[in-house]
């Protein structure tokens, strides 16, 4: 089936199998490999992107459901070679180690601040519940998000 999605400002059309998940569309058809896959139960959040402005796990959505939609992936955050304030906050606060969960974590964190611009520490921890990290113990991730919120 034919699917047309605007990804990071560019509208693309591809023929895909109906069972194609949005994450596979992003990685294999749009060739944007910054969005990672960490599980097969929609538990880890590594594949989080923004669909029509909301943070979603792109493994929970079929590409067909996103037809006509607008997607932002981690590659779409950088503007004119400048990182997004959330990306900068992660760098400045050592909010990443291996970096595999990072694209999803950053997208989820931006989504969190869109809904709650000045969250408490507890609200950040609860808000990132759907994103797993195995390296940082979350300490510096939480610090990064709070720092971004206070900018």
């Amino acid at each position, binding site marked *: 089936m034919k699917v047309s999605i605007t990804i990071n400002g560019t509208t693309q059309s591809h023929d895909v199998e109906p069972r194609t998940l949005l994450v596979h569309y992003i990685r294999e058809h749009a060739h944007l490999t910054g969005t990672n896959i960490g599980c097969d139960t929609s538990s880890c959040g590594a594949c989080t992107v923004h669909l029509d402005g909301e943070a979603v796990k792109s493994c929970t959505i079929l590409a067909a459901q996103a037809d006509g939609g607008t997607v932002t992936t981690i590659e779409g955050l950088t503007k004119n070679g400048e990182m997004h304030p959330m990306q900068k906050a992660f760098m400045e606060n050592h909010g990443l180690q*291996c970096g595999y*969960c990072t694209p999803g974590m950053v997208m989820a964190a931006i989504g969190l601040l869109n809904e709650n611009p000045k969250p408490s520490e*507890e609200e950040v921890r*609860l808000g990132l519940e759907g*994103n797993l990290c*195995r390296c940082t*113990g*979350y300490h510096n991730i939480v610090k990064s998000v709070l720092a971004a919120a206070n900018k």
Partner: protein
Amino acid sequence: MSITEERTNNVIGQRMLRREDPALLTGEAKFVNDLAIPGALHLAVLRSPYAHARIKSIDVSDAASMPGVVAVYTGKDLQSTWAAPMPCAWPVTPDMKNPAHYPLAVDKACYVGDGVAAVLATSETASRDALDAIDVVYEPLPAVIDLEDALSDRVVIHDAIGTNTSYTWNLKVESAEGAVEQAFKNAAFTVSERYVQQRLIPMAMEPRAVAAVPQPFGGDVTLYSATQVPHILKVMTAITLGIPEHQMRVVAPSVGGGFGSKLDVYAEELLCVALARKHGAPVRWVEERSENTQATIHGRGQIQNIELAADKDGRLTAVRVRLIGDMGAYLQLVTPGVPLLGAFLYAGVYDLPQAYDFSCTSVFTTMTPTDAYRGAGRPEATYAIEVAMDALARTMGIDPYELRKRNYIKKEQFYDASGNPTGYTAFHGLNYDSGDHLAAAEKAMQHADYVALRKVQATQNVPGARKRLGVGMTSYFEMCGLAPSRVLASLNYGAGGWESATVRVLPTSKVQVVTGTSPHGQGHETSWAMIAAEKLGVAPEDVDVLHSDTAIAPLGLDTYGSRSLAVGGVAIAGACDKVIDKARLIAAHQLECAAEDLQFEKGTFSVKGSPDKAVPIAAIAFAAFTAHNLPDGVEPNLEAQYTHDPKNFSWPFGTHVCVVEVDTETGKVDVLKYVAVDDCGNQINPLIVEGQVHGGVVQGMAQALYEEAVYDEDGNLKTSNLAEYLVPAACDVPPITTDFTVTPSTTNQLGVKGIGEAGTIGAASAVMNAVIDALSGLGITKLDMPASPNNVWKAIQAAQGGNQ
């Protein structure tokens, strides 16, 4: 900043932001599954649904005729492909039993997840779809999931070896024969405890991924793998497949965490290389998470029996340990050695006389093979001694910190009578190079406000209180920085413990550091550049760090066991010294003075006493490149390779304190505070050090509170994905208070020690001691991990005589 600009600050010790981050933060970083490999075939592996079953027949005909399928192989089909079985590098005893283990099972499947057939297809979906069409007839056999049952040989898993026992390894140290027995006889206090180290699933966020690319002519193969150990993998792939080693190249691109689970040689790596050669086409494979929980190694898996003997003041007089180690179905790369890495640590940080009796018997079970998982043997050992110390304190009716203070190896014991650092030679003969346990513990207690906490606890934990407060502590020694090659030889390990580095100053004075370490989140590029910058007096931005590709960094022993800095970082410092030595000869030639009259400071050689006679290393590098005017006998170019074989292990230490509140109605444990005071000697980059502690602590806390690989009696893994296996999220863990003491190592020039595993080593026992402390007033003195709400609630009900 240019190389010649005078530097005023030391580089080492700065909280420098990581150069790795921009690529990882913007999606530019390439993990194995991100690599574009035109024409690649996709491998999928059919896995046994039975824990233990004879393979009666396999019919692949339907699968082979499916669209996109190129070939289907069974274990029998590929048997002649393997020059040797899959490797185990650590035959811990001469009579260790190691059943032959091949990438695909031939006659029998020995755990749920054991590969039995492989599909090659033109797409990943086609390869996976075809798995369903393979018809395997199994004859199910009884599962063996209990370690004591395994020991009984009621069901023998590997017919060829005739027993489930792989080996028994002993470490008995006595000042005189019978010293242990005597100590227990004379003891004023003894405790005898049994602990279960539940199996854990490492769950690096990036599942494994492999791509093997045959080069067009001559038989060379490049293997891309999400591995911690490209160098070990290269040698082992060559041996296992009979490929000349110089024709194998292994590349680990960005790797998404490992924690030991990528310290291995796996079936899928060998299958990809073998089939890529067979088909003359690239072959790639990516692991699904629910496959990862079965096909990638598990960690821990021990039953520990520990007995302590103490005199009337609580000073330890003897320690006796009996372990049963769960090897799983086969021995992977270092499976049998994991319990040995803990064998020296069951007396913890305490001043034990020569009265130590350790024995470990390791058994096969019909579960996923175990192997090194963050800490590997040392978290288990630390858990046993530290939880047993709390038991001893309870038996004596004294404060657990007071008991530890009476037993710590004292600071002065690391020095001789004249105050020279000699290290402390422990009962087993290993020398702990440095330590100040009391200082770290005091600092941790101050952060935790221990005295005040005990007062709050006394008022809070009254009969009938719903929420009970608990405080737990752990003092640990991490034996890491693997390792002196001669010590490894004495433990029968199949390789050395050195690390290699090459430092090259290019004609334009930029520096290349080539390291044999292989990072997967630790920030080596940043830290190694800092070491070279400090040594050579250049800006860190002028240093590039090359790694994780055996064609670029041909020598190395990779990253595990908190070895990278203490061995690999020190190797870089050594290579810099050799570069400076060579540069000094050229500088002396240019300045027409004797080499020994030159001093090297901030990147410049100058004549002692005549600072105006000077030449920067940048000018030397260019002179070495042009080679127009070099002293006789000096080769062109400014480059040196150095291999560092450590003189000793690295001995980081510290004290962690955990404060919990347990809800006695729900069994839920809330961690209110966690304090980690660690001592890893001099720190290259404190930002990275703290990050390592945070992550390590949460992994240890996860063992204590959340995680367990659960098998049913038929050997099915019930926690086979991330919906069922509880990796904690941000809301499940507290912020971590980190602080440090600094006791430099005396056995390497940087004074550094490892830090990667310290958090995990300290955390599980600190958390469990806190939980038990909270509940001891209810009569609960033992609790198995994880202290989940269910397990805690049941323990409370049992203690109160209620229904479970």
